[in-house]
């Protein structure tokens, strides 16, 4: 039986029903729904999976996939998601969220590899990915794919430049038509993860139309700070997380902010907090309703929540190999590469933590909550 868009739309409703049945007692304020967490994950033997778990611990699916994935792009209304191959992957996986069935192995184009991140356009027809041009290593490419909603297949349709080197995460600006992209500035050869230009990095934060036109391109003072991960608030405020490739003992800004109409600049973080990050930030999530930003620092085993507007610290807590973070009602859900996952209730300044009944460890650095 072939899947159709109509059937999948029905399935989406059924899935929401399962979520209600699952229930998550913490969130009685949101009709008791337990959000579905999508992420890449490994098992103890190193097998890679595309997984979906409800936050109450109930497993929706765990689909073995050949390549390790990084981030997940959920379709806006169909219960499908693309699990994006981690650089320098040549494959990404389109998964049916009802049962985890692999719908399509999306191959990268010749002379391209995926960089681990993608987004679906709100109308559901287009998917955009960050990719590397391996003929001109490091040249950032925005891959464009059309979703054939009848056949449920992604078809490469074209590409544009990301106006920078080594693009990584991308996200929609509030207009839903322009994208903000972290060009990490690092050149890697095809098939390799080895950095080739740490002495001549060129990171940039680019805002561009999904059709390719450059809207803005900004840089930070330190060229060895690779701009990699980001999130966008409902009002268009962008927060980015950097990874610093200079000496381990230097103190450089690792978060930056671009408020609407303002210049891109470091987000105010104390030197003591920067020192706890081990020069490495992983996942960024903005909670637009609560005007908060959360960030994982897996090498420093540290998780943070700040007030988006004042920069005040709400939480600065140890958490082993904290990985993906996502906004949920009342706060944030955080996965871990090595330990148990957590929910942080940050509705008040006295942030409360609760362990989640999800499997511990082996979660990759990003998650999608829906």
């Amino acid at each position, binding site marked *: 039986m072939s899947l159709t868009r109509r059937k999948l739309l029905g399935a989406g409703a059924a899935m929401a029903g399962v979520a209600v049945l699952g229930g998550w007692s913490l969130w009685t304020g949101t009709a008791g729904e337990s959000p579905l967490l999508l992420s890449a994950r490994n098992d*103890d033997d190193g097998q890679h999976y595309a997984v979906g778990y409800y936050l109450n611990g109930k497993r929706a699916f765990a689909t073995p996939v050949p390549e390790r994935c990084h981030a997940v792009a959920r379709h806006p209304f169909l219960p499908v998601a693309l699990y994006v191959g981690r650089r320098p992957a040549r494959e990404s996986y389109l998964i049916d969220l009802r049962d985890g069935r692999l719908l399509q192995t999306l191959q990268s184009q010749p002379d391209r590899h995926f960089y681990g991140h993608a987004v679906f356009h709100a109308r559901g027809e287009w998917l955009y990915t960050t990719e590397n041009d391996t003929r001109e290593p490091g040249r950032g490419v925005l891959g464009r794919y059309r979703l054939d909603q009848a056949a449920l297949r992604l078809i490469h349709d074209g590409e544009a430049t990301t106006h920078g080197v080594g693009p990584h995460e991308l996200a929609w600006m509030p207009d839903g038509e322009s994208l903000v992209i972290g060009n990490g500035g690092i050149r890697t050869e095809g098939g390799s993860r080895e950095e080739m230009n740490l002495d001549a990095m060129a990171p940039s934060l680019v805002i561009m139309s999904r059709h390719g036109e450059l809207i803005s391109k900004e840089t930070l003072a330190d060229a060895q700070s690779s701009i990699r991960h980001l999130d966008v608030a409902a009002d268009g405020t962008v927060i980015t997380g950097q990874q610093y490739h200079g000496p381990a003992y230097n103190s450089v800004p690792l978060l930056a902010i671009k408020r609407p109409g303002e210049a891109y600049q470091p987000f105010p973080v104390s030197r003591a907090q920067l*020192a706890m990050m081990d020069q490495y930030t992983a996942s960024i999530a903005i909670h637009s309703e609560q005007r908060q930003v959360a960030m994982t620092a897996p090498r420093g085993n*540290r998780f943070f929540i700040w007030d988006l507007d004042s920069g005040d610290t709400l939480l600065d807590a140890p958490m082993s190999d904290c990985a993906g973070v996502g906004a949920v009602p009342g706060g944030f859900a955080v996965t871990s590469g090595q330990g148990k996952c957590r929910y942080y209730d940050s509705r008040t300044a006295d942030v409360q933590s609760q362990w989640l009944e999800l499997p511990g*460890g082996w979660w990759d650095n990003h998650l999608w909550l829906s």
Partner: protein
Amino acid sequence: MRALSVLVSVSLSVLLVACSNPRQEVTVQLANDVLLPAHQQWRDSNAALVDAVETYCAAPQASVDDLETAFYQAQSRWSHLQPLMVGPLSEGNRSWQVQFWPDKRNMVVRQTESLLDETDSLTREQLEKASVVVQGLTAFEYVLFDQSVALAQSHDRYCPLLTGIARHQLALSESVLALWNEPGGMLAQLRDFPNERYATAEEGLAAILRTQITGVDVLKKKLGTPMGRLNQGVVQPYQAEAWRSRQSIENLQASLQGAQAVWERVRSLVSDAALVKDIDQAYADVANQLAALPAPLMELVQAPANSETLTTLYAALDNLENRQQTELARNLNIQIGFNANDGD
């Protein structure tokens, strides 16, 4: 009231389970009997270093022997601690303040001399504001042992720095110890579960083992770097840790003993007797080979005749690391590495 009594009985049963949980017992033993004492001994050696440097600098004609002995001891305690520094010392760039290694560009010499050139008599505040490069044992070692420094004739220039470094080390170690001992601090986090840091004793034990295995990996780097393993086989004697004090091998031994102290406690949890025997043997192999080395490491690496001996030692360390990282981790069902070591 009924709800409360249910809660109490559940808590009691959790407590009973906890008391009979061997992994929790081992974790608590490690914290109380191995990790905390190692931090205290490190602190004590820094206090002795402060005393020794103050005595030396107060008497222009004093012998440097006692100061050297105190330095060896501080360096040894720090080496012993490295495979055990789970928690505060491994966070916040603190360990860089203790030692600046590897020093690929000889920054310790340049920054130390330039700091002293810029200041008449270095104050504590000036040292605190300076780079970590000049705050730790590596800068201290340079002043004490480098042949280019005429310390006996230059007390005015170097004593404020030596005193400042020793006091900085003492303050640092006391602040780390306070983070261990404070209510809800590191010691409590390795004793009472769940807590802010660990959901279970299992997670605490995994963190200790990861630190210890990382420590063994660092031993490989400390041996392999002067051997030229990262330099296409071209030896780098001046990249040996502690080459100026000729203490590289003694430091490796101290670190190995620190790592072994963890293994001694973890051994009882291993279900495979053959694996226990293999790991015991792996520690013995490394220890015996280290003890048999006839000269300081920076001298050994320069004589091609020693190449085979050092390569065999490196292989023994590699074997020890692999036994723990793969077989021990699998036997205990403890996950060692993931994103933090291979991020994106």
